[in-house]
């Protein structure tokens, strides 16, 4: 068995052409997912059953099923439904990119909402009591006390989810999108050299993960500076 380096040198630039799409999938889903997660989390902690239950059901479904199945349902399944085909959001679902975004957003939204909720629950009750005793309203306590502290608490777990999201973007290749994995699989089909190509691809993802982790570490340290003696 020989390790063909010329193949790698040839393939890597082609694979990197897909990095734009990978990033688009990552950033758009992450941002939309975060907005969705904040909404779901607020519903979940609202204390009103008609808000809390739907949120819990949504979280249960999207954390309990594989992301690949969710992608397939959106990409293959939705076009089958008449009311989707005839609605104004049809252009979104007709396009594999749109489907991938929808599926990834819904999936990460469920996980991140629980992560945010963990952060909120983790805020020391005493601090909120002090705020109450000083006369701060519920809204003021949430904005000035709970949120800043919860964000710092949730950051490590959130960072992990962003990295998971990066890895999930690779599944977009299963619905014909030409992200890095998609391009790599095409090259493998043409060259019959899975080892070289896939290992190169893995290394690229590992580098991206490493960059993400370092950046997140910086943010964590900056936000946590009040914790350093």
């Amino acid at each position: 068995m020989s390790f063909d380096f010329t193949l790698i040198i040839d393939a890597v630039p082609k694979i990197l052409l897909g990095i734009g799409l990978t990033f688009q999938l990552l950033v758009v889903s992450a941002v939309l997912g975060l907005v969705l997660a904040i909404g779901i989390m607020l519903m979940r902690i609202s204390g009103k059953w008609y808000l809390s239950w739907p949120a819990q059901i949504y979280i249960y479904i999207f954390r309990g099923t594989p992301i690949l199945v969710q992608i397939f349902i959106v990409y293959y399944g939705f076009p089958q439904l008449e009311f989707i085909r005839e609605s104004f959001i049809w252009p979104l679902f007709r396009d594999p990119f749109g489907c991938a975004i929808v599926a990834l957003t819904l999936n990460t939204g469920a996980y991140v909402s629980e992560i945010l909720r963990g952060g909120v629950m983790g805020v020391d009750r005493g601090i909120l009591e002090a705020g109450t005793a000083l006369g701060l309203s519920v809204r003021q306590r949430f904005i000035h006390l709970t949120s800043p502290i919860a964000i710092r608490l949730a950051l490590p777990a959130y960072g992990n989810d962003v990295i998971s999201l990066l890895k999930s973007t690779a599944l977009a290749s299963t619905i014909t999108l030409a992200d890095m994995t998609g391009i790599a699989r095409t090259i493998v089909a043409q060259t019959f050299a899975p080892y070289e190509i896939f290992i190169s691809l893995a290394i690229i993802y590992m580098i991206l993960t490493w960059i993400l982790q370092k950046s997140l570490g910086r943010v964590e340290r900056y936000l946590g500076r009040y914790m350093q003696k």
Partner: protein
Amino acid sequence: MTSNAVIQMRNVGKSFGTFQALKGINLEVAKGERIVVCGPSGSGKSTMIRCINRLEKHDEGKIIIDGKELTDQVDDINAVRREVGMVFQSFNLFPHMTILKNLMLAQRLVRKTSKAEARDTAMQLLERVKIPEQADKYPIQLSGGQQQRVAIARTLCMKPKIILFDEPTSALDPEMINEVLEVMTDLASYGMTMICVTHEMGFARSVADRVIFMDAGEIVEEAEPEAFFSNPKNDRTKKFLSQILSH
């Protein structure tokens, strides 16, 4: 019922599920009075003062602060909390803000004072508790005693009429207890109405106008410090005092 009373508690009761934490509490606090509340763990002392600023809701009876009755009406509660300050056993400073911001936050949000005025008040009070140089530090950089003094300054920034102290020195190392007691004694000498739950009997003797002993959710005995310590009337009071004063 004297009209001088800033706090009136009439037949107040509070239960947590099946456990009755407070039974038939009757208490009147006059303006400028310094009250010390003592008693064994679980006697309901903390619960009682927490009912005064409605961190706990009383189930029976009435609580009247400065003429206004405490109910579920949001306006009432906020009005009360503006005038009643609280100092906690675990300080509860806002960890993500500097000392200065800790002192300014409530002033700006609740009393709606301007940034400059809030800052001035904050610095004045930091001077009063003798740690103005810590203004730009974060709570974690201060010692326990310093943090508690900041907590007291934070309450004072709101210019309250009454301050409640919930075991303010219980979480402190022994060598830091005095610096906090000094600040509290200073406050007392300025005529601040205070209710203080504490085990510091020396403080009670020197500062209190009245000492109240609570046990099992009831007020068992109350008297002026001299009478209380040298001549306790109730058996339970005697037992508690012998336990706490023997070391």
